[in-house]
């Protein structure tokens, strides 16, 4: 197990290097010249040159990369290049909890919804419940998230008035209030993920339920509930767990639509805002953090396979 971890850590470091280089190179993809962004238009060329010099933009690429990476590793992601010139790490640290919470809550809800639905579907595959659940899943998947978000807001916030529509309360201020405000946006995220998880898990469950060991469990007198929960779920959950990891990483940076609909100060809003104003240090810093989280999440998922299946534990040693 120790060697596995070491090997994984090495791979991880390589991936992170590549990712960080990609992030660093993002700046050259931004359409505007950083110096123009900082000073505004209509200055003397010498002034622009001075700013570029100051930022080190005239240094060779490898030098700039190593400089930037060195600072990033020590936690210095630089300052925003547009007013109010705030510290990038501070801004990311403020936005990240919002996105992580939304993603975790949304995925948690999706699991709570999809596991029973998938079991019900798979146990009577081809039956009426299965057909209704499958059709609904496709239906939900085909609704774009901004539309789903608007519908959820219309029903639960405007019509029923059960939940607030916008505003964010930090966990540190009040957990109850925080959850109350996070519920609707998390629900919007959960909808599509639920549909996805249900489809994947249902199919894997159907395959598992045809295994001999399921028949053997049945022949021992185990109940359908016991067989589904204790025998079939774990061996069927690999695809879903993989998908869960991908979704978690993806959602942290891409809940922009939901953040926008609910006016939430998350990572998506931060990155989009920064990109629009040409705030390249902010984009670099935020994207790097998202990438690191993505890579770490997927490492966790990889390790979880060993927990899910004892055969994999041994195969790695």
């Amino acid at each position, binding site marked *: 197990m120790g060697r596995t971890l070491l090997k994984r850590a090495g791979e991880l470091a390589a991936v992170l290097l590549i990712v960080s280089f990609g992030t660093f190179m993002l700046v050259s993809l931004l359409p505007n010249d950083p110096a123009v962004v900082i000073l505004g238009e209509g200055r003397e060329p010498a002034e622009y040159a001075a700013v570029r010099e100051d930022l080190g933009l005239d240094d060779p690429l490898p030098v700039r990369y190593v400089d930037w990476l060195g600072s990033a590793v020590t936690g210095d992601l630089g300052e925003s290049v547009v007013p109010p010139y705030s510290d990038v790490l501070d801004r990311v640290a403020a936005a990240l909890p919002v996105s992580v919470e939304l993603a975790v809550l949304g995925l948690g809800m999706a699991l709570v919804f999809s596991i029973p639905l998938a079991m019900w579907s798979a146990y009577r595959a081809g039956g009426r419940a299965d057909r209704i659940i499958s059709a609904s899943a496709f239906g939900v998947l085909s609704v774009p998230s901004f539309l789903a978000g608007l519908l959820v807001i219309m029903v639960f916030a405007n019509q029923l008035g059960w939940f607030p529509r916008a505003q964010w309360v930090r966990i540190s201020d009040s957990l109850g209030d925080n959850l109350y405000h996070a519920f609707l946006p998390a629900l919007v995220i959960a909808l599509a993920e639920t549909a996805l998880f249900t489809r994947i898990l249902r199919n894997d469950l159907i395959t598992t339920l045809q*295994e*001999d*060991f399921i*028949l*053997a*469990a*049945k*022949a*021992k*007198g*185990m*109940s359908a509930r*016991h067989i589904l929960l*204790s*025998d079939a779920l*774990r*061996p069927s959950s690999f695809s879903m767990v993989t998908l869960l990891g991908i979704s978690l990483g993806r959602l942290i940076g891409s809940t922009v639509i939901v953040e926008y609909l609910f006016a939430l100060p998350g990572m998506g809003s931060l990155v989009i805002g920064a990109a629009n104003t040409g705030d390249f240090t902010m984009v670099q810093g935020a994207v790097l953090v998202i990438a690191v989280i993505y890579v770490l999440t997927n490492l966790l998922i990889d390790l979880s396979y060993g927990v*899910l*299946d*004892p*055969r994999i534990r*041994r195969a790695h040693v």
Partner: protein
Amino acid sequence: MSSTSAVLQERSTEPGAPVLVVDDLRTQIHTPRGDVQAVDGISFTLGRGETLGIVGESGSGKSVLGRTIMGLYTTGPTMTITGRVLIAGKDVHALSTTALRDLWGGDVGMVFQDPMTALNPVKKVGVHLTESLRKHRGMNRAQAAAHAAELLNLVGIPEPRRRLDQYPHELSGGMRQRVVIAMALANEPALLIADEPTTALDVTVQKQILDLLERLQDELGMAIMLISHNLGVVAGRADRVAVMYAGRVAETADAATLFDVPHHPYTEALLEAIPRLHQPPHVRLAAIDGAPPNMIAPPVGCRFAPRCRYAQPDCTAAPPVLDAALVRGVADPRHSFACYHPVNAGGQ
């Protein structure tokens, strides 16, 4: 069905009530291409401590028979089952779901063909055994663990305590099959259905497993239904043998009688196909030409007729019924066959 009477007469000769009574059992499987009569009117009884060997080619309906008897197959959208199965006096196909769950793993245990797939790869050996003990006997965790260790000991697994904490993949095939047997025997069932229990194992391990089943039968007194495609496995292990062909019993008799004086040409052909030690080397093994019939539209008369070397025109007219064999003019209630032109007819 008149053919069942000869077989059912045995019931009166059994000491005590039989553990298993199968009466005119039929399993029809509905497939998109048509209905398959996988089990077509099978009747027999099995007493305590008795072993019945069910022998037939792949696709003869042996496994379906086993699972239908067990009640794992029930009438529903995909199949229709008629006839009756009594296990320990309980009408299997009339039981409620809850009663069936008490029966499975309680009165009747099942051993599966492939020990590589019959154990859940993500569950420890111990859990496989304890969950059944806790369900059927209401044992607590510690009691169940202790009993599970005893069971492993019973099936000849050394260091049972350590094995309980291992996963199936850490055990050899033979060991796994021992675990599967321990699972089936956890609650000392009256009937054990062993569906090809040795097919996936090495020959030496096969013998060990069959010896084990025999010893356990002596110790626990259960009835065993031993399903195999291999007459050699059944020979010497079964008290009685039923040869199945295309969903029906072609011939059934005491094991010794069946091997000595087979009357059905199919039984004869199967016996000829067994490799024997005294055979001269490099001689082609006898084989039965052709394949079992398409069960969606089986032959009208005797289902073996298209492959039978003794077939006559009357064979394809109507199916022969399972009737008692005559020994010196007297019907032998323990030996019956379904054939118009039996072999060894005068040979007793």
